[in-house]
């Protein structure tokens, strides 16, 4: 789940710099189709050389937002600026933007060379220049020697690279990628993820990627915008999104999480902890301050499965632990997943890395276990 060097590269911190000029400015954009509002009042700043992911389930409006950036849809209201230029009314063929389609949309009647060179041919470049640049692009995506083939003679991964080369040849200011890896199998997908990141760093072009796959979003992006029902719910680095989800939807959508509804009346103890009473847990939950501001209204305590520890003996603390019975154990190789039923009837999910080859604690089915967690682990989320 490590984000790709998000902390080191200074260019990737542009969103923290108040003086930095955003490269793409989306201002209050709404798109409705009849009664259906696909994109609802979205405002977003994307910076130069950023790899921004729009993440959300199907029908959340992420693709519509991407299509508005490409110019295939006009916003019902709001404005989009790319590099300071208002994109309103500018047709796709005049935008400094290229797109890689989910289906790749390679022209079936053209060879790989003709596909890749299509954008330059439209600019009426000379034949020799086109040939040279096509050669460079094919080298970049490591498809030398495939130029004469037709798209149907290529594998899925090769088609994906042709589509990428075709979208990159015009050196766009912004590259849009619609589910770029969805059609590839798992191994190839993981490999291509890192290739994409390398390519983006090499070229310095801003990428906006639409995906429904949270792992893909976390691997690729400098920042993620989580979308739900046409709205941007949270924008942040992969780490921020995972560790400090802004609300219940984000917490549940990214990774898995155990949620406990808590009493809104929160008070502090002498160590500065926020104390919560959750009906589903017998003991109070102490949350270290700084784990987000105390939200108002209905709130939940969210704890990630890997941030809970399992033990057979009761922990010597007054708070932040509970007990239950092991219902299911799933051995996944690198880690094991335990489903533990609490006395309140709630089932919670705990993961434990399989550090040792032989588990000396030997937790098995129907065993009484204790679960405890650090006071920095829980996060408070609202509706």
């Amino acid at each position, binding site marked *: 789940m490590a984000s790709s060097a998000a902390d080191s590269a200074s260019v990737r911190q542009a969103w923290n710099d108040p003086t930095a000029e955003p490269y793409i400015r989306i201002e209050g954009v709404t798109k409705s189709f009849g009664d259906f509002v696909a994109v609802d009042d979205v405002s977003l700043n994307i910076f130069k050389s950023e790899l921004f992911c729009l993440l959300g389930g199907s029908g959340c409006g992420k693709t519509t937002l991407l299509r508005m950036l490409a110019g295939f849809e006009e916003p019902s209201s709001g404005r989009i600026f790319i590099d300071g230029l208002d994109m309103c009314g500018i047709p796709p*063929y005049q935008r400094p933007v290229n797109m890689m389609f989910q289906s790749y949309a390679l022209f*079936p009647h053209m060879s790989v060379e003709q596909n890749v060179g299509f954008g330059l041919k439209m600019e009426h470049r000379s034949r020799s220049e086109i040939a040279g640049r096509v050669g460079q692009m094919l080298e970049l995506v490591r498809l030398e020697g495939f130029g004469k083939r037709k798209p149907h003679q290529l594998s899925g991964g090769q088609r994906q690279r042709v589509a990428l080369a075709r979208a990159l040849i015009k050196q766009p200011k912004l590259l849009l990628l619609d589910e770029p890896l969805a059609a590839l199998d798992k191994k190839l997908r993981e490999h291509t993820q890192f290739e994409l990141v390398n390519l983006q760093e090499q070229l310095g072009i801003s990428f906006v990627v639409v995906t429904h796959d949270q792992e893909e979003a976390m691997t690729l992006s400098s920042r993620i915008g989580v979308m739900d029902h046409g709205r941007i719910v949270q924008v942040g680095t992969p780490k921020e999104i995972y560790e400090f989800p802004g609300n219940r939807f984000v917490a549940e959508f990214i990774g898995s999480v155990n949620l406990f509804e808590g009493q809104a009346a929160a008070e502090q103890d002498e160590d500065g902890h926020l104390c919560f009473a959750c009906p589903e847990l017998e003991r109070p939950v102490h949350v270290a301050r700084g784990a987000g501001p105390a939200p108002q209204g209905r709130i939940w305590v969210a704890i990630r499965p890997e941030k809970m520890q399992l033990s057979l003996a009761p922990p010597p603390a007054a708070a932040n632990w509970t007990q239950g019975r092991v219902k299911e154990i799933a051995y996944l190789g690198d880690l094991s997943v335990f489903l533990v039923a609490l006395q309140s009837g709630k089932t919670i999910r705990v993961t434990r890395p399989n550090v040792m080859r032989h588990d000396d604690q030997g937790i098995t089915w129907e065993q009484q276990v204790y679960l405890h967690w650090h006071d920095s682990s829980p996060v408070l989320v609202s509706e």
Partner: protein
Amino acid sequence: MKPAGRPEEMPRATAEQAAGERFGRALRTTLGALARRPPIRWLRTQLARRGLNGRTAVIAVPYLWLLLFFLVPFAIVLKISFSEAQIAMPPYQPLLQWAGERLADIRLNVNPGNLLYLVEDSLYLRAFANSLQVAAISTLAALMIGYPLAYAIARAEPRWRGILLMMVILPFWTSFLLRVYAWIGILKNNGLLNNLLLWLGVIDQPIVMLQTDFATYLGIVYCYLPFMVMPLYAILEKMDLTLLEAAEDLGCRPLRAFASITLPLSMPGVIAGCMLVFIPAVGEYVIPALLGPADSLMIGKVLWTEFFNNRDWPVASAVAIALLLLLVVPIMYFQRVQERENEGQT
């Protein structure tokens, strides 16, 4: 996972389905048992050994049809084209004749003169050339009208497409002859069109339209337009529109995108439509006879004259054979080209 609980009452549809399945299973079992009976099994093995099974039987039906109603008649016409005309019943000499009493006295009456005659008399060559020209111009006109029509229907809203297609096919519901006759009423000197133009004041005396080449072209284009629209619509409708978006995204204006993406991808439909119009138009007899000039030289008309006026069946057959060769050779070439094109695509 626990197995899902069996519902107490089966819904009606499910019960019917289950009954259907039971019946199907029983039928299969009975047929299977029957097929395993020794005599039937023996027959099946014997047939299979000679390459005859269910699949070949299904394929054999259309082949048998073509053999009986296409190849055999063709062979008869071919035979007649090599014989000589005579005033008799039938009006040609048999190809094989017994000249004497003995079995060996077979006389072979092969007469290649009919086919040579077609080349010698310039009438036939001119008729062929004229027919090809009329068919080619009509096909081009039908393509010019049919392509935008098919394109518009294919890009219309899905709920409108069916209705629009229906409107293209609708004229087929009246007789072909009736529709051609209707054009006489429209085109004649005191017909609908001339009266309208006179009334509008566009012209001050009627234009002669009937019995001109124009009327022939009009009739052919009108009658064969649906054959052009159908294959074009089929291919345009299933085209992937993201290809056009991709082209536009790469800096291609819509008109250019049409020329470099839509048109090349619709070529199989263009070829199919053109062949469906061109082939029948070459041999067209009714439309030029009713709408065209009296002296129009169309091969279909020549064929008619040879058969019914001159009663020269051998020459008429030779004309028919020549017409067939003239059409079959280019079609085979086109199909080869198309096959090669298709290999280039998915």
